């Protein structure tokens, strides 16, 4: 990995081949803490997704506002069979009830992910990763969007282009906090002490519906993320996230 500069030097003309993060321990693409928290997050996300799907199966109807049940009109219903007999799904069979362990797994994993996320957030702020690699500059963004719509591929870079930066920021500081917020807003105990949690999102059922859409958005991000890795070169990218170094 040639063409490295120290962070003190002025930025070169083309921001897309700017290599800002060069940890002192030679050509690391990802620091140890980022690699560890990345894979913990990956595992946690998988567990949350599987258990979350199972939770939706017990009641695949969604509502808006405070209340909603199988006797009231739904905002929408996912066309899948349910694990409860009284949810009218159009299927003439009922799936087995796996709600108990799914809930326990969901909440335990959420705890692990929150701790991991806090560690990650503190790290990216302290190490400068947030400022150097995630917060985009205005000029960079305009150039990246133009390039994007002209279907030009940015040059191979050791950092993220502005569109990637915006996406990562939206996921890290938008979708994940929204998941936590709406998750907490569904707890009858927490909303007793902190009613604004649920009032701010429009009610108990609104919180559940937002939680669902945020999870769909995160899953779409995951697909895009994996697709990008295939496009950028699966082996070197995955290797970089495991060892920290990219095969040159």
């Amino acid at each position, binding site marked *: 990995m040639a063409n490295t500069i120290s962070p003190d030097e002025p930025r070169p003309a083309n921001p897309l081949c700017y290599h800002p993060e060069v940890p002192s321990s030679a050509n690391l693409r990802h620091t140890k803490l980022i690699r560890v928290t990345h894979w913990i997050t990956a595992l946690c996300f998988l567990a949350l997704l599987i258990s979350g799907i199972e939770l939706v199966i017990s009641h695949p109807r969604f509502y808006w506002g405070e*209340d*909603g*049940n199988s006797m009231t009109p739904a905002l929408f219903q996912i066309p899948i069979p349910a694990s409860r007999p009284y949810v009218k799904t159009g299927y003439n069979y009922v799936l087995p009830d796996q709600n108990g362990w799914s809930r*326990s797994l969901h*909440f335990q994993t959420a705890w692990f992910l929150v701790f991991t996320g806090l560690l990650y957030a503190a790290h990216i702020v302290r190490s400068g990763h947030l400022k150097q690699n995630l917060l985009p500059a205005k000029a960079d963004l305009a150039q990246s969007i133009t390039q994007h719509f002209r279907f030009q591929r940015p040059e191979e870079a050791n950092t993220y282009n502005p569109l990637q930066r915006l996406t990562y920021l939206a996921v890290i500081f938008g979708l994940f906090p929204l998941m936590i917020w709406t998750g907490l807003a569904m707890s*009858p105990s927490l909303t007793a*002490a*902190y009613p604004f949690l649920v009032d701010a999102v429009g009610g*108990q059922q609104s919180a559940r519906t937002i939680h669902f859409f945020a999870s769909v958005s995160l899953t779409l991000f995951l697909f895009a993320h994996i697709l990008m890795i295939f496009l950028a070169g699966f082996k070197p990218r995955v290797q970089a996230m495991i060892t920290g170094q990219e095969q040159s």
Partner: protein
Amino acid sequence: MSKTSRRNLIAGAAGVAGATLLAKQYDLIPPDAAGIYGCGHTLTYAAQRLLIGSANAREFKPSQITKVPHQKGSPPKAPEYRQLQANGFKEWTLQVDGLVASPAAFSMDQLKNYPKSTQITQLICEEGWSYIAEWSGVPLAHILEVAGAQPNAKYVVYYSMDKRIEAIDMDEARHPQTLVAHCMNGGDIPVGHGGPLRLRAPRQLGYKNRKFLTRITLAESLDNFPMNYKYSWYAGI
């Protein structure tokens, strides 16, 4: 292992050990703390107990009451239930025993003559659906006072006629919104909603709000009860 990471590891282990000791001291360890999900159960229970204190569940306006509240499940299959139902549940009793000064059986008339508390709260099922309804009944705290709860009691275990057993801690049991409810939306509780008696704990999810309530037992530990921890014991989340 480097010096700093060893130091971090030791500090971390000491932190976990210290937190566990404190949690034990303040009864923040739930009865289902063992097992693969014990870590999550304990974190949730301890955090919520510390964060919520004696806060009241949100209450709603009469106009917000759900027009068609969903009725889940079917009435108990015991023939006894049908006999009691035929007589308008006049003979229904609530037995209170365990760690109390005076074990007793309360009749429906007795319960209806006790101080009544009314709330319009949301019942949230762990499956995701919910409804808002008005509930009236005797605060469980009052029944515990009448029966003389002993200071070493840590849990209120309760039974329903459909052979279900649940338990809450004393904080939840003594909370002013925790009711032995005999009234729903201004009338007797319909059979589909657990009539004639239902334990209503609005800060807890549906499965702690047991229907067809027949018996309350105070205990220091849940070890000798046939508890079912298929769903996490603490249901504030």
